[in-house]
């Protein structure tokens, strides 16, 4: 079952029914919205043995695909062939390996692809996060992607089509998947994952429509408690003097792997301020703190909010470029507008 993306599911099932299925698809969209799930759904629909509407989800073929056991359906991703890291756990920063699919994996795919399917109708290859594949691997796939052997369907997933070689994109049917409506995520959390109400709304709002994230957060308490911690830190920071801010920055940057998350949270918070300040309170992300946001928003000018968002942006760019995290955080915190009695008027 696929949550959301009705139009994409429609499109795929329609083309299946009319025998117009393309041999190569590219599913593009932000992380955690169900690209790989949709790819596997298509694989099931292609190989389902049930005479009824496909995929049935209960025949042997469907179940095998669900468990990753089907011999004709392969999911290629970077972690293939090595110990998988648990979901949600920060991957160790020390690893020197570049992520992404390698040319050797693509070559292996090519040698297998010419064989006819073992038990299904079509061989399906799902290549995950193809924007991370290196240039050699991507080029290596070009000819296969254009004219694969008869029974093969290739499905690439990527954050966005722009990140790939244009020659790759032009060979695929591109489906741009969008984040789900927040309402749908909330309902899904309630009915399928048994999340209680206030939490379901909150998670749905925070997920920004990324159902995968919402589900992970519903299982993993630490995601929420971390959020609490970092937002409180942000609120406090605005009241601190310069010295205390520096020590806060040091404290936060002790765990550099958590910083992207911190910055994301702060960015969302300030985006909410931006929305609230400009009179669009309907689209807030941090719904549970709407009041605090509305109150906070009145303290700053649009321009101040804008420039702080830019500062956050800059800090996260700098961290990508290997600037010392401590330094970047210090600068960011020092730039934080100070909430004090003198400047509290608008």
């Amino acid at each position: 079952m696929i949550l959301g993306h009705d139009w994409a599911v429609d499109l795929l099932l329609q083309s299946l029914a009319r025998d117009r299925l393309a041999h190569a698809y590219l599913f593009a969209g932000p992380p955690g919205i169900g690209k790989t799930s949709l790819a596997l759904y298509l694989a099931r629909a292609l190989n389902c043995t049930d005479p009824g509407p496909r995929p049935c989800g209960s025949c042997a073929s469907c179940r095998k695909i669900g468990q990753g056991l089907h011999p004709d359906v392969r999911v290629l991703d970077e972690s293939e062939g090595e110990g998988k890291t648990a979901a949600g756990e920060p991957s160790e920063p020390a690893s020197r390996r570049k992520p992404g699919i390698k040319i050797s994996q693509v070559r292996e795919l090519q040698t297998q692809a010419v064989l006819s399917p073992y038990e299904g109708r079509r061989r399906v290859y799902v290549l995950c996060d193809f924007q991370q594949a290196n240039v050699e691997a991507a080029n290596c796939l070009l000819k296969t992607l254009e004219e694969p052997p008869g029974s093969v369907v290739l499905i690439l997933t990527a954050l966005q089509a722009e990140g790939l070689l244009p020659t790759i994109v032009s060979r695929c049917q591109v489906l741009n998947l969008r984040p789900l409506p927040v309402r749908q995520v909330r309902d899904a959390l309630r009915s399928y994952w048994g999340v209680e109400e206030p939490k379901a709304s909150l998670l749905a709002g925070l997920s920004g429509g990324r159902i995968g994230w919402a589900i992970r957060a519903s299982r993993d308490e630490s995601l929420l408690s971390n959020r609490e911690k970092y937002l409180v830190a942000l609120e406090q920071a605005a009241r601190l003097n310069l010295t205390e801010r520096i020590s806060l920055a040091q404290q936060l940057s002790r765990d550099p792997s958590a910083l992207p998350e911190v910055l994301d949270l702060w960015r969302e918070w300030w985006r909410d301020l931006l929305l609230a300040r400009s009179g669009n309170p309907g689209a807030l992300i941090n719904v549970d703190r709407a009041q605090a946001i509305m109150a906070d928003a009145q303290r700053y000018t649009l321009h101040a909010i804008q420039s702080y968002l830019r500062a956050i942006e800059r800090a996260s760019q700098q961290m990508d470029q290997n600037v010392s995290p401590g330094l970047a955080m210090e600068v960011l915190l020092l730039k934080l507008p100070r909430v004090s009695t003198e400047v509290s008027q608008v």
Partner: protein
Amino acid sequence: MAGQALYRRWRSRTFSELIGQEHVTQTLLNALRAGRIGHAYLFAGPRGTGKTSAARIFAKAVNCLEPADGEPCNHCSICTSINEGRALDLIEIDAASNRGIDEIRSLRDKIAFSPNECRYKVYVVDEVHMLTDPAFNALLKTLEEPPPHAIFVLATTEPHRIPLTVLSRCQRFDFRRVSVPNLLLKLERICAQEGVRARSEALAAIARHATGSFRDAESLLDQLVSFGVEEIKLEDVERVLGSAPEAVVAGMAQAVISGDAGSGLRWINEALDNGVEARQLTREVLEYLRGLLLIKNGGAQLLSVTPETEKSMAAQAEALTIARLLRAVRLFNGAGNLLKTGSHTQLPLEMALVEACLPEESPGQAQRGPGTVAGEPGAVSAPQTARAAAAGPAERRGPSSRTVVSGSQASSRPASGHVEPPPEPPDPPDLNPRLEEKRAIPPGSTKEASAAGETQAPVRQASVSADPGLAWLQENWGRLLQAIRPKSRQVEALLKSCEPLKMQGDVVTLGFYHGFHRERLNDEHNRRIVEEALSGLAGRPCRLESKLYDGNRQEREKETESSRREELLRNPVVREAIDQLGATVVDVQ
């Protein structure tokens, strides 16, 4: 497989079907008719312009049993076997997968065998840019003088990655992007033969989005056909592309014009909720702004929009200055780039919109606004107060003394308020005292400043603000150094070993402690660097004077240092460091 992708099913099969590449097909046809077939060709060009197709057509044409005026017949046994991809003598190599020297060696070993059934063995080496360097080199000799029955066709999207030695052995054909009318022609042909009904504006939208590539256009059409709608309409195309209706884009432009960030954000969020894609939206806004820019500059005929749209766009263009328009273009362009790289959702777009809505603020104003960035008030306010202190008296005195002393530079900086009489006026009575004072420290002329000014350094120091030119110079000294640094580090160092003494009119006087330094700076080249930088800062041409400074350097330095130290202690950041962290001032640089 019945469901073959459109771009595979409708691959061109003859040269005449290959639309939009007449410069290539004509040349090849002429060569075929004349029987002058080369042994190595290179087809280069963007994706989806017909390189691989042309290579296959060419392979058919040279081998066809009944060629018609150079074109392959597509009926004979050889043509059909090539069309079905089972010909033994058309060897299509995926150079991106077989990119090593070993693959090329095995090719070289086999090339000597004569063809199985055709006249020529045709090697189509696709994506040839991915061959490794050794592989390219291993190919060189074979490529130069292959056996008479072998023809090479290399195809690539990136010809610049191919070694020159390979390029020089091939006849090169550059495929061009296909124009929109040609794309439309092909799309219409496909629709007619597939029995698909499509509105012409929908096809036009597809063609525009394909950016000159047949394959992109055909993939998109394929996707739309898969939806199974009766007739393909513009809305369908928009939905698949995630592009926004015109109203949204126009609404956002209107928000920028009226500076209403709130309504602009509403437009964005509504559009995104309706399935519009943030990047696509950014692109369309940019396109729209470009339209406004065209209208504004009298290029309205370059636009392809309906008359009504053009009218409303013209009204919007009227309401914007070119500067603001350009700024908006820059902002949205930046947002587009951010969206491309990051995993963000719509935030960059929203920020660009808000910033475009805000009135342009000079950095100074921005920092003084209420509730602004806190770290900076601290850091900035010190210089600011210093500047205010320095500027205060200077401005009060500035206009009068300047007009009197050197008339020439009157209007380059704001003469605060009251209208002065033109240069050399009958002295108004109230100016007299100051005039006297000015004259006491000799003004204007160039040879003077020596004795009086410098021997009494303390006096000069105290009267810093009495000379507006010098105050300005000292204020901007750091910026001057910065401006010079990228041009010449040496000159920067030279400037560090001198003191700005005076600025009168457009003559800047620098004092040196050592004759050597002075000579170096007077060197024509160095001097020009400084003068250029100075002129750039002052906004008018400046000349440089230098003289030997005969005071005691160490004493002077001590004085400046102690005054700097005092100033530093007034800085809140420093004070806080001292109070909270127990810092001490060790050195002032």
